[in-house]
Protein backbone atom coordinates (compact mmCIF):
# COMPACT_ATOMS: atom_id res chain seq x y z
CA UNK A 1 0.00 0.00 0.00
CA UNK A 2 2.98 2.29 0.46
CA UNK A 3 4.03 2.27 -3.14
CA UNK A 4 4.43 5.89 -4.16
CA UNK A 5 2.61 5.83 -7.48
CA UNK A 6 0.38 3.71 -9.63
CA UNK A 7 0.74 3.50 -13.37
CA UNK A 8 -1.75 6.31 -13.92
CA UNK A 9 -2.78 8.62 -11.11
CA UNK A 10 -6.57 8.96 -10.74
CA UNK A 11 -8.37 12.05 -11.99
CA UNK A 12 -10.08 12.40 -8.64
CA UNK A 13 -8.76 10.97 -5.41
CA UNK A 14 -10.86 11.42 -2.27
CA UNK A 15 -9.83 10.11 1.14
CA UNK A 16 -11.71 10.63 4.38
CA UNK A 17 -13.66 13.66 3.20
CA UNK A 18 -16.01 15.22 5.76
CA UNK A 19 -18.22 18.24 5.30
CA UNK A 20 -20.54 20.20 7.56
CA UNK A 21 -23.12 22.89 7.00
CA UNK A 22 -24.25 25.47 9.53
CA UNK A 23 -22.71 26.78 12.71
CA UNK A 24 -22.91 25.95 16.41
CA UNK A 25 -26.17 24.27 17.36
CA UNK A 26 -27.36 23.86 13.80
CA UNK A 27 -24.08 22.45 12.56
CA UNK A 28 -24.83 19.27 10.72
CA UNK A 29 -22.53 16.79 9.10
CA UNK A 30 -23.46 16.30 5.47
CA UNK A 31 -20.59 14.14 4.22
CA UNK A 32 -19.00 11.45 6.37
CA UNK A 33 -15.59 10.03 5.57
CA UNK A 34 -16.09 9.73 1.86
CA UNK A 35 -13.34 7.89 0.02
CA UNK A 36 -13.39 7.19 -3.69
CA UNK A 37 -11.34 7.44 -6.87
CA UNK A 38 -12.25 8.24 -10.42
CA UNK A 39 -9.86 7.00 -13.08
CA UNK A 40 -9.22 8.98 -16.28
CA UNK A 41 -11.90 8.26 -18.84
CA UNK A 42 -14.16 6.48 -16.36
CA UNK A 43 -17.90 7.15 -16.26
CA UNK A 44 -19.17 6.98 -12.69
CA UNK A 45 -22.79 7.36 -11.69
CA UNK A 46 -23.79 8.47 -8.22
CA UNK A 47 -27.27 7.79 -6.92
CA UNK A 48 -28.95 8.12 -3.60
CA UNK A 49 -32.02 9.62 -1.95
CA UNK A 50 -32.61 13.32 -2.10
CA UNK A 51 -30.73 15.31 0.54
CA UNK A 52 -28.02 12.72 1.11
CA UNK A 53 -25.24 15.07 0.03
CA UNK A 54 -24.65 14.23 -3.63
CA UNK A 55 -24.70 17.85 -4.82
CA UNK A 56 -22.47 18.89 -1.95
CA UNK A 57 -19.92 16.28 -2.97
CA UNK A 58 -20.09 17.48 -6.56
CA UNK A 59 -19.50 21.12 -5.63
CA UNK A 60 -16.52 20.10 -3.52
CA UNK A 61 -14.95 18.14 -6.37
CA UNK A 62 -15.74 21.01 -8.72
CA UNK A 63 -13.66 23.34 -6.52
CA UNK A 64 -16.70 25.52 -5.93
CA UNK A 65 -16.60 25.06 -2.17
CA UNK A 66 -13.85 25.08 0.42
CA UNK A 67 -12.81 21.64 1.65
CA UNK A 68 -13.01 21.51 5.42
CA UNK A 69 -11.64 18.13 6.34
CA UNK A 70 -10.03 15.26 4.47
CA UNK A 71 -8.09 14.94 1.25
CA UNK A 72 -9.62 15.87 -2.07
CA UNK A 73 -7.11 15.70 -4.90
CA UNK A 74 -8.18 16.62 -8.41
CA UNK A 75 -5.60 16.14 -11.18
CA UNK A 76 -2.96 15.96 -8.49
CA UNK A 77 -4.03 19.22 -6.92
CA UNK A 78 -4.88 19.12 -3.21
CA UNK A 79 -8.05 21.15 -2.73
CA UNK A 80 -7.91 21.33 1.07
CA UNK A 81 -6.41 24.71 1.88
CA UNK A 82 -6.11 25.62 -1.79
CA UNK A 83 -6.13 29.30 -2.72
CA UNK A 84 -9.15 30.81 -4.42
CA UNK A 85 -7.02 31.67 -7.44
CA UNK A 86 -5.83 28.07 -7.83
CA UNK A 87 -9.35 26.73 -7.45
CA UNK A 88 -10.56 29.13 -10.12
CA UNK A 89 -7.80 27.92 -12.46
CA UNK A 90 -8.63 24.30 -11.74
CA UNK A 91 -12.27 24.91 -12.61
CA UNK A 92 -11.23 25.55 -16.22
CA UNK A 93 -10.34 21.89 -16.50
CA UNK A 94 -13.65 20.74 -15.08
CA UNK A 95 -16.80 20.86 -17.16
CA UNK A 96 -20.08 21.24 -15.37
CA UNK A 97 -23.57 20.40 -16.47
CA UNK A 98 -26.32 21.57 -14.25
CA UNK A 99 -29.81 20.42 -13.45
CA UNK A 100 -31.15 23.54 -15.09
CA UNK A 101 -29.22 24.24 -18.25
CA UNK A 102 -27.86 27.59 -16.90
CA UNK A 103 -27.24 28.97 -20.34
CA UNK A 104 -26.75 32.71 -20.71
CA UNK A 105 -30.13 34.00 -21.79
CA UNK A 106 -28.78 36.86 -23.84
CA UNK A 107 -26.43 34.71 -25.92
CA UNK A 108 -27.29 32.53 -28.90
CA UNK A 109 -26.57 28.81 -28.78
CA UNK A 110 -23.34 29.40 -30.68
CA UNK A 111 -22.25 32.24 -28.40
CA UNK A 112 -23.06 30.18 -25.32
CA UNK A 113 -20.82 27.40 -26.54
CA UNK A 114 -18.13 29.91 -27.39
CA UNK A 115 -18.19 31.07 -23.78
CA UNK A 116 -16.73 27.62 -23.18
CA UNK A 117 -14.12 27.70 -25.93
CA UNK A 118 -13.20 31.29 -25.00
CA UNK A 119 -11.61 29.80 -21.89
CA UNK A 120 -8.97 28.15 -24.07
CA UNK A 121 -5.77 30.05 -24.68
CA UNK A 122 -3.83 30.37 -27.87
CA UNK A 123 -6.70 30.34 -30.33
CA UNK A 124 -7.91 33.28 -32.37
CA UNK A 125 -11.47 34.49 -32.09
CA UNK A 126 -12.53 32.86 -35.33
CA UNK A 127 -10.86 29.58 -34.40
CA UNK A 128 -12.75 29.53 -31.14
CA UNK A 129 -15.96 30.38 -32.95
CA UNK A 130 -15.40 27.53 -35.39
CA UNK A 131 -14.78 25.18 -32.50
CA UNK A 132 -18.07 26.28 -30.97
CA UNK A 133 -19.82 25.53 -34.26
CA UNK A 134 -18.15 22.14 -34.47
CA UNK A 135 -19.40 21.27 -31.01
CA UNK A 136 -22.91 22.31 -31.87
CA UNK A 137 -22.73 20.09 -34.94
CA UNK A 138 -21.54 17.20 -32.80
CA UNK A 139 -24.54 17.56 -30.49
CA UNK A 140 -26.80 17.80 -33.55
CA UNK A 141 -27.80 21.45 -33.31
CA UNK A 142 -26.19 22.88 -36.44
CA UNK A 143 -29.56 24.30 -37.45
CA UNK A 144 -30.15 26.06 -34.16
CA UNK A 145 -26.89 27.98 -33.83
CA UNK A 146 -28.37 31.44 -33.86
CA UNK A 147 -31.32 30.74 -31.61
CA UNK A 148 -31.54 32.12 -28.11
CA UNK A 149 -32.03 29.58 -25.28
CA UNK A 150 -35.56 30.89 -24.99
CA UNK A 151 -36.38 29.44 -28.42
CA UNK A 152 -34.87 26.00 -27.76
CA UNK A 153 -36.54 22.96 -26.27
CA UNK A 154 -35.37 21.50 -22.96
CA UNK A 155 -33.39 18.74 -24.61
CA UNK A 156 -31.79 21.16 -27.03
CA UNK A 157 -30.80 23.48 -24.20
CA UNK A 158 -29.20 20.63 -22.31
CA UNK A 159 -27.30 19.66 -25.44
CA UNK A 160 -26.03 23.22 -25.79
CA UNK A 161 -24.93 23.01 -22.16
CA UNK A 162 -23.04 19.79 -22.93
CA UNK A 163 -21.41 21.40 -25.94
CA UNK A 164 -20.44 24.39 -23.82
CA UNK A 165 -18.94 22.19 -21.11
CA UNK A 166 -16.97 20.14 -23.64
CA UNK A 167 -15.82 23.19 -25.63
CA UNK A 168 -13.48 24.08 -22.77
CA UNK A 169 -11.88 20.63 -23.25
CA UNK A 170 -12.25 19.47 -19.65
CA UNK A 171 -10.58 16.40 -18.26
CA UNK A 172 -13.45 15.84 -15.86
CA UNK A 173 -17.15 16.38 -16.36
CA UNK A 174 -19.49 16.82 -13.41
CA UNK A 175 -23.19 16.50 -14.12
CA UNK A 176 -25.93 16.97 -11.55
CA UNK A 177 -29.17 15.29 -12.60
CA UNK A 178 -28.75 16.44 -16.21
CA UNK A 179 -31.88 14.57 -17.31
CA UNK A 180 -34.28 15.59 -14.56
CA UNK A 181 -35.88 18.31 -16.66
CA UNK A 182 -36.18 16.10 -19.74
CA UNK A 183 -38.64 13.41 -20.78
CA UNK A 184 -37.24 9.90 -20.67
CA UNK A 185 -36.36 9.37 -24.33
CA UNK A 186 -34.69 12.77 -24.61
CA UNK A 187 -32.92 12.08 -21.33
CA UNK A 188 -31.61 8.83 -22.69
CA UNK A 189 -30.32 10.51 -25.87
CA UNK A 190 -28.60 13.26 -23.90
CA UNK A 191 -26.87 10.81 -21.58
CA UNK A 192 -25.73 8.59 -24.45
CA UNK A 193 -24.37 11.62 -26.21
CA UNK A 194 -22.60 12.73 -23.07
CA UNK A 195 -20.99 9.37 -22.61
CA UNK A 196 -19.91 9.07 -26.21
CA UNK A 197 -18.33 12.50 -26.28
CA UNK A 198 -16.60 12.06 -22.96
CA UNK A 199 -15.12 8.78 -24.24
CA UNK A 200 -13.80 10.49 -27.36
CA UNK A 201 -12.11 13.12 -25.24
CA UNK A 202 -10.98 10.54 -22.64
CA UNK A 203 -12.71 12.72 -20.12
CA UNK A 204 -13.88 11.28 -16.81
CA UNK A 205 -17.52 11.74 -15.88
CA UNK A 206 -19.18 11.89 -12.51
CA UNK A 207 -22.92 12.04 -12.94
CA UNK A 208 -25.53 12.32 -10.21
CA UNK A 209 -28.85 10.86 -11.24
CA UNK A 210 -32.14 9.57 -9.95
CA UNK A 211 -33.15 8.19 -13.26
CA UNK A 212 -33.06 4.36 -13.06
CA UNK A 213 -33.28 4.02 -16.85
CA UNK A 214 -29.86 5.49 -17.49
CA UNK A 215 -27.89 3.57 -14.88
CA UNK A 216 -26.53 1.21 -17.54
CA UNK A 217 -24.28 3.90 -19.10
CA UNK A 218 -22.07 3.72 -16.02
CA UNK A 219 -18.72 1.99 -15.83
CA UNK A 220 -19.26 2.03 -12.12
CA UNK A 221 -22.22 2.83 -9.92
CA UNK A 222 -21.88 4.48 -6.52
CA UNK A 223 -24.68 4.66 -3.99
CA UNK A 224 -24.89 7.21 -1.28
CA UNK A 225 -27.03 7.39 1.80
CA UNK A 226 -26.97 9.89 4.64
CA UNK A 227 -23.63 11.34 3.65
CA UNK A 228 -21.90 7.97 3.28
CA UNK A 229 -20.96 5.88 0.31
CA UNK A 230 -22.46 2.43 0.54
CA UNK A 231 -19.84 -0.17 -0.28
CA UNK A 232 -20.80 -2.15 -3.37
CA UNK A 233 -22.25 -5.51 -2.51
CA UNK A 234 -20.27 -8.19 -4.27
Amino acid at each position, binding site marked *: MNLPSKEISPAVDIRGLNHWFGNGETRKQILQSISMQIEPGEVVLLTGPSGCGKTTLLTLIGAL*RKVEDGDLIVFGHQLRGSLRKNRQRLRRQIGMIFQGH*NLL*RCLTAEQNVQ*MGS*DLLRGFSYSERRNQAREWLKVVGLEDQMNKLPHDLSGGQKQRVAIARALAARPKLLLADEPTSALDSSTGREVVDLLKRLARNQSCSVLMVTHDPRILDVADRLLKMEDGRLIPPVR
Partner: protein
Amino acid sequence: MNSFWKTRRIPLAWLLLSRQPLRLFVALAGICFAGILMFMQLGFRDGLFDASVTVHKLFDTDLVLMSPRSMSSISMSGFPRRRLIQTMAHDDVIGITPVNWNFLLWRNPETLSTRSILALGFEPSDPLLKDSRFAFKAKALNIRGRVLFDDLSRNEFGPVSKWFLEGRTVETEVAGKRVRVAGLVSLGPSFGADGNLITSRETFLNLSPSTPQGSIEIGLIRLKPYSDPEVVVTSLTKSLPNDVRVLTRNEFIEFEKNYWRTSTSIGFIFSLGAAMGFVVGCVIVYQILYSDVSDHLPEYATLLAMGYRLKTLLGVVAREGILLAIMGYLPAYASGQALYALVRNATKLPVQMDIDRAVLVFSLILVMCMGSALLAMRRLVDADPAEIF
Protein backbone atom coordinates in the same frame (compact mmCIF):
# COMPACT_ATOMS: atom_id res chain seq x y z
CA MET B 1 -3.88 43.58 -33.89
CA ASN B 2 -2.81 39.99 -33.62
CA SER B 3 -3.11 39.98 -29.86
CA PHE B 4 -6.55 41.59 -30.18
CA TRP B 5 -7.83 38.59 -32.12
CA LYS B 6 -6.15 36.25 -29.67
CA THR B 7 -7.74 37.84 -26.61
CA ARG B 8 -11.04 38.90 -28.12
CA ARG B 9 -14.03 37.25 -26.53
CA ILE B 10 -17.77 37.29 -26.94
CA PRO B 11 -18.83 40.93 -26.37
CA LEU B 12 -20.87 40.00 -23.34
CA ALA B 13 -21.48 43.55 -22.10
CA TRP B 14 -22.87 44.64 -25.43
CA LEU B 15 -25.04 41.53 -25.76
CA LEU B 16 -26.39 41.92 -22.23
CA LEU B 17 -27.46 45.45 -23.07
CA SER B 18 -28.68 44.97 -26.60
CA ARG B 19 -30.69 41.82 -25.97
CA GLN B 20 -32.79 43.70 -23.41
CA PRO B 21 -33.95 46.59 -25.58
CA LEU B 22 -36.49 47.97 -23.14
CA ARG B 23 -33.99 48.16 -20.31
CA LEU B 24 -31.40 49.65 -22.63
CA PHE B 25 -33.91 52.21 -23.83
CA VAL B 26 -34.80 53.28 -20.30
CA ALA B 27 -31.13 53.57 -19.36
CA LEU B 28 -30.30 55.59 -22.46
CA ALA B 29 -33.34 57.80 -22.02
CA GLY B 30 -32.23 58.48 -18.45
CA ILE B 31 -28.65 59.24 -19.40
CA CYS B 32 -29.75 61.32 -22.35
CA PHE B 33 -32.15 63.27 -20.17
CA ALA B 34 -29.44 63.91 -17.61
CA GLY B 35 -27.05 64.94 -20.36
CA ILE B 36 -29.54 67.33 -21.93
CA LEU B 37 -30.29 68.85 -18.54
CA MET B 38 -26.59 69.37 -17.89
CA PHE B 39 -26.04 70.81 -21.36
CA MET B 40 -28.94 73.20 -20.94
CA GLN B 41 -28.11 74.37 -17.45
CA LEU B 42 -24.40 74.78 -18.06
CA GLY B 43 -25.11 76.31 -21.46
CA PHE B 44 -27.49 78.85 -19.96
CA ARG B 45 -25.04 79.64 -17.20
CA ASP B 46 -22.10 80.21 -19.54
CA GLY B 47 -24.36 81.85 -22.09
CA LEU B 48 -25.64 84.32 -19.55
CA PHE B 49 -22.15 85.17 -18.41
CA ASP B 50 -21.04 85.50 -22.00
CA ALA B 51 -24.10 87.58 -22.70
CA SER B 52 -23.03 90.02 -20.04
CA VAL B 53 -20.03 90.96 -22.18
CA THR B 54 -21.42 90.96 -25.73
CA VAL B 55 -20.62 94.65 -26.12
CA HIS B 56 -17.38 94.50 -24.10
CA LYS B 57 -15.92 92.01 -26.54
CA LEU B 58 -16.55 94.22 -29.57
CA PHE B 59 -14.48 97.23 -28.54
CA ASP B 60 -11.36 97.92 -30.57
CA THR B 61 -8.99 98.25 -27.65
CA ASP B 62 -6.04 96.78 -25.74
CA LEU B 63 -6.57 98.49 -22.39
CA VAL B 64 -9.58 100.04 -20.70
CA LEU B 65 -9.65 102.97 -18.31
CA MET B 66 -12.51 102.96 -15.83
CA SER B 67 -13.60 104.62 -12.62
CA PRO B 68 -12.86 102.53 -9.53
CA ARG B 69 -16.43 103.25 -8.46
CA SER B 70 -17.87 101.45 -11.47
CA MET B 71 -19.30 98.14 -10.32
CA SER B 72 -20.61 96.77 -13.60
CA SER B 73 -22.04 97.76 -16.94
CA ILE B 74 -25.31 98.71 -15.25
CA SER B 75 -23.68 101.04 -12.75
CA MET B 76 -20.90 102.88 -14.52
CA SER B 77 -19.42 105.96 -12.86
CA GLY B 78 -17.69 108.76 -14.66
CA PHE B 79 -14.07 109.89 -14.38
CA PRO B 80 -12.21 112.90 -15.80
CA ARG B 81 -11.51 112.60 -19.49
CA ARG B 82 -8.10 114.22 -18.80
CA ARG B 83 -6.87 110.93 -17.37
CA LEU B 84 -7.33 109.20 -20.68
CA ILE B 85 -5.45 111.95 -22.47
CA GLN B 86 -2.63 111.63 -19.91
CA THR B 87 -2.08 108.01 -20.99
CA MET B 88 -0.99 109.29 -24.41
CA ALA B 89 2.27 110.25 -22.73
CA HIS B 90 3.17 106.57 -22.52
CA ASP B 91 5.39 105.40 -25.36
CA ASP B 92 3.37 102.29 -26.16
CA VAL B 93 0.00 104.06 -26.40
CA ILE B 94 -0.87 104.84 -30.00
CA GLY B 95 -4.54 105.76 -29.75
CA ILE B 96 -7.39 106.50 -27.36
CA THR B 97 -11.17 106.70 -27.59
CA PRO B 98 -13.20 108.34 -24.82
CA VAL B 99 -16.59 106.65 -24.48
CA ASN B 100 -19.73 107.73 -22.66
CA TRP B 101 -21.93 104.95 -21.37
CA ASN B 102 -25.39 105.33 -19.91
CA PHE B 103 -28.85 103.84 -19.93
CA LEU B 104 -31.51 106.02 -21.54
CA LEU B 105 -35.20 105.54 -22.24
CA TRP B 106 -36.04 104.55 -25.80
CA ARG B 107 -39.54 104.97 -27.11
CA ASN B 108 -40.79 102.12 -29.28
CA PRO B 109 -41.80 103.93 -32.49
CA GLU B 110 -44.66 101.50 -33.06
CA THR B 111 -46.25 101.04 -29.63
CA LEU B 112 -44.83 104.22 -28.09
CA SER B 113 -43.94 102.43 -24.86
CA THR B 114 -40.51 103.18 -23.39
CA ARG B 115 -37.71 100.87 -22.43
CA SER B 116 -34.19 101.29 -21.10
CA ILE B 117 -31.47 101.03 -23.76
CA LEU B 118 -27.70 101.21 -23.44
CA ALA B 119 -26.39 104.32 -25.20
CA LEU B 120 -22.72 104.73 -26.11
CA GLY B 121 -21.35 108.10 -27.06
CA PHE B 122 -18.01 108.74 -28.79
CA GLU B 123 -16.30 111.01 -31.32
CA PRO B 124 -17.42 109.56 -34.68
CA SER B 125 -13.92 109.98 -36.10
CA ASP B 126 -12.38 107.76 -33.38
CA PRO B 127 -12.14 104.00 -33.71
CA LEU B 128 -14.66 102.27 -31.46
CA LEU B 129 -15.51 98.75 -32.65
CA LYS B 130 -13.34 96.11 -34.23
CA ASP B 131 -15.82 95.74 -37.07
CA SER B 132 -14.05 97.29 -40.07
CA ARG B 133 -17.29 98.57 -41.65
CA PHE B 134 -18.18 100.48 -38.52
CA ALA B 135 -16.02 103.54 -39.24
CA PHE B 136 -17.99 104.13 -42.43
CA LYS B 137 -21.35 103.89 -40.66
CA ALA B 138 -20.08 106.16 -37.91
CA LYS B 139 -19.74 109.04 -40.39
CA ALA B 140 -23.54 109.42 -40.34
CA LEU B 141 -23.30 110.35 -36.68
CA ASN B 142 -21.60 113.65 -37.48
CA ILE B 143 -25.08 115.07 -37.91
CA ARG B 144 -26.64 115.94 -34.57
CA GLY B 145 -29.54 113.79 -33.38
CA ARG B 146 -28.56 110.72 -35.38
CA VAL B 147 -28.07 107.31 -33.81
CA LEU B 148 -26.95 103.83 -34.93
CA PHE B 149 -29.41 101.23 -33.71
CA ASP B 150 -28.36 97.69 -32.72
CA ASP B 151 -30.36 95.39 -34.97
CA LEU B 152 -29.89 92.51 -32.49
CA SER B 153 -31.75 94.47 -29.81
CA ARG B 154 -34.77 92.71 -28.39
CA ASN B 155 -38.03 93.10 -30.27
CA GLU B 156 -39.55 95.25 -27.52
CA PHE B 157 -37.72 98.27 -28.95
CA GLY B 158 -39.91 98.12 -32.03
CA PRO B 159 -39.49 97.06 -35.65
CA VAL B 160 -36.66 99.54 -36.11
CA SER B 161 -34.34 97.49 -38.31
CA LYS B 162 -37.22 96.24 -40.42
CA TRP B 163 -38.48 99.73 -41.07
CA PHE B 164 -34.98 101.02 -41.67
CA LEU B 165 -34.22 98.28 -44.19
CA GLU B 166 -37.51 99.00 -45.95
CA GLY B 167 -36.10 102.48 -46.55
CA ARG B 168 -38.39 104.29 -44.14
CA THR B 169 -37.15 107.16 -42.03
CA VAL B 170 -37.20 105.88 -38.49
CA GLU B 171 -37.56 108.57 -35.91
CA THR B 172 -38.33 108.19 -32.25
CA GLU B 173 -37.59 109.70 -28.87
CA VAL B 174 -34.65 108.93 -26.62
CA ALA B 175 -34.81 110.44 -23.15
CA GLY B 176 -37.64 112.61 -24.42
CA LYS B 177 -35.62 114.04 -27.30
CA ARG B 178 -36.09 113.42 -31.00
CA VAL B 179 -33.54 111.14 -32.75
CA ARG B 180 -33.33 109.60 -36.19
CA VAL B 181 -31.86 106.16 -36.92
CA ALA B 182 -28.95 106.70 -39.29
CA GLY B 183 -27.84 103.09 -39.59
CA LEU B 184 -27.78 99.64 -38.08
CA VAL B 185 -24.99 97.88 -36.18
CA SER B 186 -24.89 94.38 -34.75
CA LEU B 187 -23.89 94.28 -31.10
CA GLY B 188 -26.35 91.99 -29.30
CA PRO B 189 -28.29 92.34 -26.08
CA SER B 190 -26.41 91.67 -22.89
CA PHE B 191 -27.41 90.92 -19.35
CA GLY B 192 -27.83 94.50 -18.32
CA ALA B 193 -29.01 95.88 -21.64
CA ASP B 194 -31.85 94.60 -23.80
CA GLY B 195 -30.69 96.79 -26.65
CA ASN B 196 -27.96 99.19 -27.67
CA LEU B 197 -27.52 102.39 -29.58
CA ILE B 198 -24.42 104.31 -30.56
CA THR B 199 -24.29 108.03 -31.09
CA SER B 200 -21.87 110.89 -31.21
CA ARG B 201 -20.54 112.44 -28.02
CA GLU B 202 -22.36 115.65 -28.84
CA THR B 203 -25.76 113.95 -29.27
CA PHE B 204 -25.09 111.81 -26.21
CA LEU B 205 -24.52 114.87 -24.00
CA ASN B 206 -27.69 116.37 -25.40
CA LEU B 207 -29.71 113.24 -24.59
CA SER B 208 -28.10 112.84 -21.18
CA PRO B 209 -27.65 116.37 -19.84
CA SER B 210 -26.75 115.09 -16.37
CA THR B 211 -23.40 113.82 -17.69
CA PRO B 212 -20.73 116.47 -16.95
CA GLN B 213 -18.85 117.87 -19.96
CA GLY B 214 -15.39 116.57 -19.16
CA SER B 215 -16.50 113.19 -17.83
CA ILE B 216 -16.46 109.79 -19.53
CA GLU B 217 -17.34 106.27 -18.33
CA ILE B 218 -14.72 104.26 -20.17
CA GLY B 219 -11.57 105.06 -22.04
CA LEU B 220 -10.24 102.77 -24.75
CA ILE B 221 -6.47 102.63 -25.13
CA ARG B 222 -4.80 101.04 -28.15
CA LEU B 223 -1.17 99.96 -27.91
CA LYS B 224 1.68 99.50 -30.36
CA PRO B 225 1.81 96.04 -31.86
CA TYR B 226 3.90 93.61 -29.79
CA SER B 227 3.81 95.71 -26.64
CA ASP B 228 2.92 93.81 -23.48
CA PRO B 229 -0.46 95.02 -22.15
CA GLU B 230 0.32 93.78 -18.61
CA VAL B 231 3.48 95.85 -18.46
CA VAL B 232 1.71 98.95 -19.74
CA VAL B 233 -1.10 98.46 -17.21
CA THR B 234 1.44 98.35 -14.39
CA SER B 235 3.25 101.46 -15.50
CA LEU B 236 0.02 103.41 -16.21
CA THR B 237 -1.41 102.44 -12.84
CA LYS B 238 1.73 103.78 -11.22
CA SER B 239 1.69 107.07 -13.11
CA LEU B 240 -2.05 107.85 -12.92
CA PRO B 241 -3.87 109.05 -9.78
CA ASN B 242 -6.12 106.54 -8.11
CA ASP B 243 -9.37 108.03 -9.40
CA VAL B 244 -9.04 105.65 -12.38
CA ARG B 245 -8.39 101.95 -12.87
CA VAL B 246 -6.44 100.48 -15.77
CA LEU B 247 -7.51 97.07 -17.03
CA THR B 248 -6.46 94.88 -19.91
CA ARG B 249 -9.17 93.99 -22.36
CA ASN B 250 -9.53 90.54 -20.79
CA GLU B 251 -9.65 91.96 -17.28
CA PHE B 252 -12.38 94.33 -18.44
CA ILE B 253 -14.41 91.37 -19.74
CA GLU B 254 -13.74 89.28 -16.64
CA PHE B 255 -14.62 92.23 -14.42
CA GLU B 256 -18.10 92.32 -15.91
CA LYS B 257 -18.60 88.54 -15.86
CA ASN B 258 -17.38 88.41 -12.31
CA TYR B 259 -19.98 90.94 -11.24
CA TRP B 260 -22.79 88.70 -12.49
CA ARG B 261 -21.08 85.62 -11.14
CA THR B 262 -20.64 86.95 -7.60
CA SER B 263 -23.48 89.36 -7.08
CA THR B 264 -26.24 87.16 -8.48
CA SER B 265 -27.29 83.55 -7.83
CA ILE B 266 -27.23 82.74 -11.54
CA GLY B 267 -24.10 80.62 -11.31
CA PHE B 268 -25.39 78.74 -8.30
CA ILE B 269 -28.88 78.15 -9.67
CA PHE B 270 -27.71 76.78 -12.98
CA SER B 271 -24.92 74.70 -11.46
CA LEU B 272 -27.50 73.26 -9.11
CA GLY B 273 -29.72 72.47 -12.07
CA ALA B 274 -26.85 70.63 -13.73
CA ALA B 275 -26.11 68.79 -10.48
CA MET B 276 -29.74 67.68 -10.32
CA GLY B 277 -29.43 66.23 -13.80
CA PHE B 278 -26.29 64.42 -12.71
CA VAL B 279 -27.97 62.94 -9.63
CA VAL B 280 -31.07 61.85 -11.52
CA GLY B 281 -28.86 60.21 -14.14
CA CYS B 282 -26.85 58.42 -11.44
CA VAL B 283 -29.99 57.03 -9.83
CA ILE B 284 -31.39 55.76 -13.13
CA VAL B 285 -28.15 54.18 -14.32
CA TYR B 286 -27.52 52.61 -10.93
CA GLN B 287 -31.03 51.14 -10.83
CA ILE B 288 -30.65 49.72 -14.31
CA LEU B 289 -27.20 48.23 -13.78
CA TYR B 290 -28.06 46.90 -10.34
CA SER B 291 -31.18 45.10 -11.52
CA ASP B 292 -29.28 43.90 -14.57
CA VAL B 293 -26.60 42.33 -12.40
CA SER B 294 -29.23 40.91 -10.03
CA ASP B 295 -31.24 39.38 -12.85
CA HIS B 296 -28.17 37.71 -14.28
CA LEU B 297 -26.66 36.60 -11.00
CA PRO B 298 -27.16 32.85 -11.69
CA GLU B 299 -25.55 33.35 -15.08
CA TYR B 300 -22.59 35.18 -13.59
CA ALA B 301 -22.30 32.36 -11.04
CA THR B 302 -22.31 29.87 -13.91
CA LEU B 303 -19.45 31.73 -15.56
CA LEU B 304 -17.51 31.63 -12.30
CA ALA B 305 -18.15 27.90 -12.09
CA MET B 306 -16.85 27.49 -15.63
CA GLY B 307 -13.58 29.09 -14.58
CA TYR B 308 -14.07 32.73 -15.53
CA ARG B 309 -12.43 35.10 -13.12
CA LEU B 310 -14.38 37.54 -10.99
CA LYS B 311 -12.20 40.24 -12.55
CA THR B 312 -13.56 39.32 -15.98
CA LEU B 313 -17.12 39.68 -14.74
CA LEU B 314 -16.39 43.02 -13.09
CA GLY B 315 -14.99 44.04 -16.46
CA VAL B 316 -18.30 43.12 -18.09
CA VAL B 317 -20.20 45.43 -15.76
CA ALA B 318 -17.63 48.20 -16.26
CA ARG B 319 -17.97 47.81 -20.02
CA GLU B 320 -21.72 48.07 -19.73
CA GLY B 321 -21.14 51.37 -17.94
CA ILE B 322 -18.84 52.68 -20.67
CA LEU B 323 -21.21 51.58 -23.43
CA LEU B 324 -24.14 53.26 -21.72
CA ALA B 325 -22.12 56.45 -21.30
CA ILE B 326 -21.17 56.60 -24.97
CA MET B 327 -24.57 55.60 -26.29
CA GLY B 328 -26.36 58.00 -23.96
CA TYR B 329 -24.01 60.88 -24.63
CA LEU B 330 -24.36 60.99 -28.41
CA PRO B 331 -28.10 61.76 -28.51
CA ALA B 332 -27.66 64.14 -25.57
CA TYR B 333 -24.99 66.01 -27.54
CA ALA B 334 -27.17 66.19 -30.64
CA SER B 335 -30.18 67.35 -28.63
CA GLY B 336 -27.98 69.89 -26.87
CA GLN B 337 -26.92 71.34 -30.22
CA ALA B 338 -30.51 71.55 -31.39
CA LEU B 339 -31.75 73.13 -28.16
CA TYR B 340 -28.91 75.66 -28.19
CA ALA B 341 -29.98 76.73 -31.66
CA LEU B 342 -33.54 77.03 -30.42
CA VAL B 343 -32.47 79.14 -27.44
CA ARG B 344 -30.29 81.37 -29.62
CA ASN B 345 -33.24 82.11 -31.87
CA ALA B 346 -35.70 82.67 -29.07
CA THR B 347 -33.58 84.69 -26.67
CA LYS B 348 -30.63 85.95 -28.73
CA LEU B 349 -28.42 84.67 -25.92
CA PRO B 350 -25.00 83.59 -27.19
CA VAL B 351 -25.46 79.95 -26.12
CA GLN B 352 -22.90 77.86 -27.99
CA MET B 353 -21.74 74.26 -27.80
CA ASP B 354 -18.12 74.73 -26.91
CA ILE B 355 -15.60 71.93 -26.70
CA ASP B 356 -14.95 72.48 -23.01
CA ARG B 357 -18.56 71.97 -22.09
CA ALA B 358 -18.95 69.02 -24.46
CA VAL B 359 -15.98 67.36 -22.74
CA LEU B 360 -17.21 68.32 -19.28
CA VAL B 361 -20.67 66.82 -19.84
CA PHE B 362 -19.16 63.66 -21.31
CA SER B 363 -16.87 63.32 -18.30
CA LEU B 364 -19.82 63.80 -15.95
CA ILE B 365 -21.82 61.15 -17.81
CA LEU B 366 -18.84 58.80 -17.74
CA VAL B 367 -18.40 59.34 -13.99
CA MET B 368 -22.15 58.80 -13.58
CA CYS B 369 -22.10 55.49 -15.46
CA MET B 370 -18.84 54.18 -14.04
CA GLY B 371 -19.79 55.16 -10.49
CA SER B 372 -23.09 53.34 -10.88
CA ALA B 373 -21.31 50.37 -12.41
CA LEU B 374 -18.91 50.26 -9.45
CA LEU B 375 -21.80 50.25 -7.00
CA ALA B 376 -23.65 47.59 -9.01
CA MET B 377 -20.51 45.44 -8.99
CA ARG B 378 -20.86 44.95 -5.25
CA ARG B 379 -23.86 42.79 -6.09
CA LEU B 380 -21.59 40.49 -8.11
CA VAL B 381 -19.84 39.36 -4.95
CA ASP B 382 -23.10 37.57 -4.14
CA ALA B 383 -22.68 35.36 -7.18
CA ASP B 384 -21.77 32.06 -5.51
CA PRO B 385 -20.95 29.32 -7.97
CA ALA B 386 -21.60 26.70 -5.26
CA GLU B 387 -25.28 27.60 -5.15
CA ILE B 388 -26.17 26.99 -8.76
CA PHE B 389 -26.36 23.21 -8.80
